[in-house]
């Protein structure tokens, strides 16, 4: 298992290959990658991601441990960036490896649902018109109910 909270960009392909190579007995590898979307008006300059150093790593490790309790997983990877990002930049990725595809898919969705609402990150959108903290969505909180 690897958790990385980092300011630097990551290479999705290199990370996916490294994750898949480390793995032997698994038949199924799922990755999720989150990308900064532009605003509807197309004028997003920067997405600034703030986090809580210390708690962030612990919270993500706890979420990943929880996933490993619930599903039969060979390996888990979580990378999450903070700092200043531009539209099209990759914010984060998770990867799961499992014997069966159902475990790999469900665990990846679980990780994403919990990272959204339970890992201490906050996003601020800075555009020509000013800056706004991204509000948490009710649907993201509701997504936790299914687990």
């Amino acid at each position, binding site marked *: 298992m690897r958790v990385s909270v980092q300011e630097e960009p990551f290479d999705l392909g290199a990370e996916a290959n490294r994750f898949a190579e480390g793995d032997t007995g698994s038949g199924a590898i799922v990755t999720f990658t989150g990308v900064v979307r532009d605003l509807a008006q197309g004028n997003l300059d920067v997405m600034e991601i703030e986090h809580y150093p210390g708690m962030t790593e612990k919270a993500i490790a706890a979420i990943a441990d929880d996933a490993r309790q619930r599903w039969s997983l060979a390996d888990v990877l979580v990378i999450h960036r903070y700092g200043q990002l531009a539209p099209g930049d990759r914010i984060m990725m998770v990867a799961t490896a499992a014997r069966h595809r159902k475990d790999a898919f469900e665990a990846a969705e679980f990780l994403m649902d919990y990272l959204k*609402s339970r890992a201490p990150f906050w996003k601020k959108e800075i555009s020509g018109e000013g800056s706004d*903290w991204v509000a948490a969505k009710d649907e993201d909180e509701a997504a936790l109910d299914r687990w």
Partner: protein
Amino acid sequence: MDVLYFAWVRERIGIPKEKIDTEAATVADLVRELVAREERYAAAFADLSALRVALDQELSGFDAPLTGVREVAFFPPMTGG
């Protein structure tokens, strides 16, 4: 005790972190103390339903006791992923 603020809570209060000497028994007591201090705290803590709290880096509730706690953090609902 270290008190940390993140995102718009940090912006309203104007600092990311401060040391506070308090006899507050619970998080809610601490919030009442802070709100009584200055308008910027009152502005930050105006709607507790829009806030989350972590005690020693674990999500907690506003009724939680502060006994033995070294670090309290206030922030809006998280928006990771």
